[in-house]
């Protein structure tokens, strides 16, 4: 980190020389805007008027070559570099813990090529997720990646944090869509992964950067797999008496190898907390939305098969209206005032595991939170929204309505609850996170999660980024500057 004004001005001159003076900012208001993402802790920190983590510079490159020059300069000055896309992450992945250069990639927003024959798109990674989708739709194509944060995200953020969308059950997570990548390595070399994802040419370089959260380099261009816009897409909803029956219905749908584009199962507390408030539907029990898409014949077939499974288990068919309403308003849950927000203390502590372990995992986390933090009146809700052939993700949250007023105390409490929830996930065959990423929030638990396998990630990091300049303090890696 730069230590005095003289040095700061020196660095600023270099940065301006690389990207132009308009694209380097040191203004207070710019630096303040980049001091947080959607992570609860830095937001709470700002809300309570604590001194935030500020970047020293906000820089807007337009090409991989500019990024390369910036990284070379940053290495010479041992200055942290934080790649920034949409700032929609919830784990503090873009918070500039050690100051440094905030590398906002949003000017790198060009679509390079849409291949309508192979159904792929190559684009710079700063393009906004919704803008990309609009452009693909003009060609009758879709990325089919609809995260709740789509309107604010960037393509690079999808990949760097292993994002997932509401239709991931059929179309996969962001990592499944990546064909190839261009990456600027921490010391400035520009590399490309192999042009296609499936091969027999050794370990996959491409997947090493997927999910790396800016700690291994800057992903500057990506080629993604696409899908045609389906002829038909239909949603339906069902109501189950309890969560376990709903989970069993979902498991049967997936293991009988139907391919719904979505299954979204809400536990009874979240059915009560959100479904009525956002969708205006008054139901009790476990509410499930299912979606199918494709040709009309396929949709008819899959919809009938899924209905048969649900009804056999006592699921009440609520028809198509509630499901279609959910689809139209699927992002409304994430807008204020609908999204849980400050002053409430909240955290999305999601995880994924196999079908045999999912209910015990859910129950263990519920117990860890509601019993462990009873004196704070902690509550827990979950829904199950990303289904795999072998298991399912639980998107669960904790809430404390009246957290400590003291910012430091609130931070400690938040971290403690999260750690307990994460350890309950690990103890029950789960992982730290399915698709919200790691950031600084969970980084400290990465060595614990990986055990002796951590040395592989740590070794690669050390080789690629000996000065530790790339997004320090995230994903379990430290700053060497």
């Amino acid at each position, binding site marked *: 980190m730069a230590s005095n004004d003289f040095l700061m001005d020196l660095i600023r001159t270099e940065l301006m020389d690389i990207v132009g003076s308009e694209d380097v*900012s040191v*203004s*207070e*208001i*710019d630096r*303040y*805007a*980049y001091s*947080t993402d*959607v992570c609860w802790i830095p*937001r709470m920190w*700002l809300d309570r*008027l604590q001194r935030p983590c500020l970047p020293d510079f*906000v820089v*807007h490159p337009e090409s991989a070559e500019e990024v390369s020059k910036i990284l070379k300069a940053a290495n010479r000055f041992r200055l942290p570099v934080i790649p*920034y896309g*949409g*700032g*929609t992450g919830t784990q503090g992945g873009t918070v500039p813990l050690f100051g440094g250069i905030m590398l*906002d990639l*949003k*000017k790198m*927003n060009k679509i390079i090529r849409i291949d309508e024959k192979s159904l792929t798109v190559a684009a710079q990674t*700063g393009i*906004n*997720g*919704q*803008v990309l989708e*609009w452009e693909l739709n*003009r060609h009758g194509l879709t990325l089919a990646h609809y995260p709740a*944060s789509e*309107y*604010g*995200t960037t393509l690079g953020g999808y990949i760097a944090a292993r994002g997932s969308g509401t239709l991931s059950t059929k179309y996969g997570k962001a990592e499944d869509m990546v064909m190839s990548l261009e990456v600027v390595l921490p010391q400035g070399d520009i590399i490309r992964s192999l042009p296609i994802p499936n091969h027999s040419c050794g370990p996959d370089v491409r997947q090493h950067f997927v999910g790396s959260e800016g700690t291994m380099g800057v992903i500057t261009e990506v080629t993604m797999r696409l899908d045609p816009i389906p002829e038909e897409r239909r949603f339906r909803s069902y109501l189950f008496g309890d969560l376990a029956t709903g989970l069993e219905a979902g498991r049967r749908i997936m293991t009988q190898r139907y391919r719904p584009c979505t299954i979204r199962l809400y536990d009874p507390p979240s059915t009560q907390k959100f479904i009525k408030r956002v969708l205006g539907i008054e139901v009790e029990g476990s509410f499930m939305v299912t979606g199918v898409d494709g040709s009309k014949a396929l949709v008819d077939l899959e919809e009938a098969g899924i209905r048969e499974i649900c009804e056999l288990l006592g699921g009440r068919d609520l028809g198509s209206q509630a499901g279609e309403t959910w689809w139209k*308003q699927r*992002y*409304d849950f*994430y*807008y*204020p*005032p*609908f999204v849980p*927000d*400050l002053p409430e203390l909240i955290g999305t502590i999601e995880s994924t595991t196999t079908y045999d372990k999912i209910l015990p995992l859910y129950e263990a986390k519920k117990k860890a939170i509601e019993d462990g933090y009873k004196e704070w009146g902690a509550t827990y809700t979950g829904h199950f929204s990303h289904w795999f052939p072998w298991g399912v993700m639980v998107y669960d949250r904790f809430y404390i309505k009246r957290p400590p007023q003291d910012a430091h105390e609130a931070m400690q409490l938040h971290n403690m609850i999260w750690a307990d929830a994460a350890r309950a996930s690990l103890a029950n065959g789960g992982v730290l996170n399915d698709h919200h990423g790691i950031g600084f929030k969970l980084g400290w638990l990465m060595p614990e999660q990986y055990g002796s396998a951590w040395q592989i990630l740590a070794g690669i990091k050390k080789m690629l980024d000996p000065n530790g300049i790339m997004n320090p303090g995230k994903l379990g890696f430290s700053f060497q500057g």
Partner: protein
Amino acid sequence: MFLTDEERKLTIQGCRFCPMCFHADTVAGITCRETCSPRGRALGLFALEHGVLKWDDPAVADVLYKSFTDGLPQEWCAGHYDHDELIIDARHRLVEKGLAPEEVKRVASRILETGSPYSDTVKADGDVLKESITSTTSGADLLVFSGCAARSLYPSSLRSFVKILKAKGIPFQLLNPEPCCGMPLYQLGDFTHAAQQAKDVSQRIAASGAREVVCLDADCFRMLTTRFARFGAQLPDGLRISHVCEWLSRMIVEEKWTFEKRSERITYHDPCSLARFTRVHEPPRAVLASLFAQKPLEMFGNCGKAFCCGEGGGMFLTNPEIVREAARRRFEQARNTGAELLVTSSPACAALLSEARTDGPVVRDLVEIVEESI
């Protein structure tokens, strides 16, 4: 003034950490800066409110005057926070503190001197008003409020409308000289001068004895219908205020105007003031349906979700490069429809989109198209 203290507080709280409308903010899309997004602006205002940032930092004014205040982020917002009014309110605070950019400070005096906010290089007046005045009838029921853009930037709209009225034998009057309605001043946060202009216009309208005012400019229409009363400018009871597209649509039905149908492929750009602030979507399309054989090829982003062409927020005064880029993008969306004609219904939008045209559809104000067909 337009937000209560409570609404202001809730809007800052709602927007300051929310990234959900970045895609709908044209300035954010062009500048690619977090600070120029609804979230960044609201977070900045939160910090200003609490003394973390200082109002007198020139970067603050720079950020707050980079917004089209076009209502599109609010249109996408499930919480319906009025981000745009929040920004106009913040600009007002800058003006009150004497911290607005120089160009903003100059605009009031320019309006008083020339009757128009447009730059000194544009001849504001003008000749079109003088030639149109010769056709007016004192005390006529219909008063045409042309607006600054139709008097200076895009006079063809006023000329065409006068020709329509003459051709149909409809008596009308104009204000001479016609004051600016105050809309640019309101958008720039100069509420004192906006109120003065609004009161001046309302008194002049009252003195004219007109029973209906037809606005050629969408922004003037918004100002008269939704902002005059809040600025203490009282219009006469029973006065009907219409945008020209509404008036034309009504005439086509009530007076049974018929036209020989034209065959060009057309598209329509909804001005923000009609698209969102007054919800006038159907009348211009009804007029086009009476003129053309084919329905408009709708642009990507239309009606309530239409993108700003760059005219909003007084940005033409403070950030002309961003305005040009917004116009270029909007024109590109029109070109993508494959249309031969790009029709809009506000002279200011027509002027900006015409400037953005290199090839592709020819830009016309709706009034010009009607006049060509009469």
